[in-house]
């Protein structure tokens, strides 16, 4: 029983989940992924908030979900052009393959904000300034050493890097960095119990299930220090320590702190790959450059093009739980749409 032919663009969490659900619902699916492996950013995430479970387990679930006869997975595949006529889509890939689709699910995801753009934090210039993604990789290899091989004694987390920041070009909140910082701060304290860990925040955005409890735990059980102030500037001292300038706004005093390592909580932006797909499909983007759904409340999976649907973080920052839900919702929309075709 074939209910239609759907192409899913993007083999990350949203794309894999959407493909799996579509297959189970009787569609033929081609899943396109530009890299050599599926899984997207989740491949680089060691442990997930809020319960710190192993990221691999979710990847395994997703891999199993796309092991279905109805699904054809094309890796190393990038879209070249899309022709749209009378509710049929002809998709050409850069490798010369041509696909016909009744509906498209765009699941092209996000990129992390490139922290070099926040020049005053010195990423890529000073040693021992990492992003949250770098740190997560270090957790994966259990290597938390500084450039000189020693272990850090004082570590700072800088919230809102590339988010809520006109100067960085992104006004929105990336939603997940605060809880990621809390998670990583706890993990750091577990690796290095003697270390001093500081989180420099403007607001603690703990809006998901169990997030606030994790925050409390980080203070009560692990002694993570929270300083309310956005880091203004990072410099490097003569003995390679990082000098951080920030105001403790609750005390009303400017601080200059010496730290060994700094972790930048890079925000989320719509992925570079999304941009190209958006051009090929004529998709509208919002002021925040994410894809714009046609309705914020009951149409968040619907694009401005009939037959093209959105799944996941190409529409807005969202965590894995939300991404999977969003992908399932996209499938529901696709099924309803195919029935009417």
């Amino acid at each position: 029983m074939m209910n239609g032919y759907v192409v899913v663009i993007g083999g990350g969490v949203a794309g894999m989940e959407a493909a799996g659900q579509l297959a189970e619902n009787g569609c033929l699916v081609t899943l396109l992924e530009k890299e050599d492996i599926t899984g997207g950013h989740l491949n680089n995430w060691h442990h997930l908030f809020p319960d710190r479970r192993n990221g691999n387990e979710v990847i395994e679930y997703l891999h199993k979900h796309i092991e279905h006869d109805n699904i054809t997975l094309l890796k190393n595949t990038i879209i070249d052009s899309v022709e749209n006529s009378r509710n049929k889509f002809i998709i050409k890939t850069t490798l010369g393959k041509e696909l016909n689709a009744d509906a498209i699910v765009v699941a092209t995801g996000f990129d992390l904000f490139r922290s070099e753009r926040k020049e005053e934090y010195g990423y890529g210039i000073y040693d021992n300034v990492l992003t949250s993604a770098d740190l997560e990789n270090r957790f994966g290899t259990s290597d938390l050493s500084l450039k000189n091989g020693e272990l850090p004694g004082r570590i700072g987390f800088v919230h809102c890097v590339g988010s809520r920041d006109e100067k960085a070009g992104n006004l929105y909140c990336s939603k997940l960095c605060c809880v990621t910082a809390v998670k990583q701060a706890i993990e750091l304290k577990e690796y290095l119990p003697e270390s001093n860990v500081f989180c420099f925040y403007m607001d603690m955005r703990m809006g998901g299930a169990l997030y606030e409890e994790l925050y409390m735990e980080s203070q009560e059980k692990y002694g993570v220090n929270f300083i309310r102030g956005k880091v203004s500037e990072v410099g490097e001292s003569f003995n390679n320590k990082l000098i951080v300038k920030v105001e403790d706004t609750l005390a009303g005093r400017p601080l200059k702190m010496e730290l060994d390592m700094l972790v930048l909580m890079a925000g989320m932006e719509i992925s570079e790959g999304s941009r190209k797909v958006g051009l090929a499909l004529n998709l509208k983007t919002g002021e925040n450059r994410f894809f714009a759904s046609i309705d914020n409340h009951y149409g968040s999976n619907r694009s401005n093009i009939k037959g093209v649907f959105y799944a996941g973080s190409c529409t807005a920052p969202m965590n894995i739980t939300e991404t999977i839900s969003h992908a399932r919702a996209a499938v529901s929309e696709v099924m309803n749409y195919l029935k009417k075709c």
Partner: protein
Amino acid sequence: MGKLYDLLLEDVRFEEGLKACMNCGVCTAICPAAEFYDYDPRKIVDTVQKKDEEEIIELLKSETIWYCGECMSCKTRCPRGNTPGFIIMALRTLSQKLGYFTESEKGRQQLAIKRTVGENIFKYGYCAATYAVNPHMHPEQGPIWEYILENSDDVFERLGGQINGIGTGPLRKIPQEALDELKKIFEVTGGTELFETIEKHSKIKASEMGLQFNSEGTDNDYFVEVYTANNGTHNAHDT
């Protein structure tokens, strides 16, 4: 919205400088004045955006608004696009217009600046010039300064100029027509009015303080007082 806030809004620097502040503190973190003075630009912006008439009057009369060094380091990184330095400039201008500046020790210093830099503009067409920098008022310039003053013609001749020369060159004599145009610009744009306002309120304050006041020059008691007085309470409390 109070009357003072409306007045502030008329200043284009205020309109440019205040969008909305979320109290992140990046400005205070790198502010040179915040380190050495009892000063916090974030608090000032937060106060002003409340639009509370009484709090704004208090600011206009306070020492606080005179601590800023107008380096504009606060503009570079504000995530909301504010510029505390511009807001300070609008507050300082309003404080002088309304006569509140003489309520604070730092505010009273405006007369000293007007009588030196301000009058230099009219007299010479420069904000500063060798002959207008008095070593006794500037001991920090060191012995080389007095030396340069005593030998300025020779110094300048070697370095390629002639003080008060006609035509081009360093510290050339600015033609009278140019000085006249400058004066007219000040009259037409409210510059002269601001100078007069500073003088007017300073004179009143001098009388209140019982200090001798001349209508020009730097050698009268009130001038010396505002130029040198420091009551020692301006520093940051936790150092």
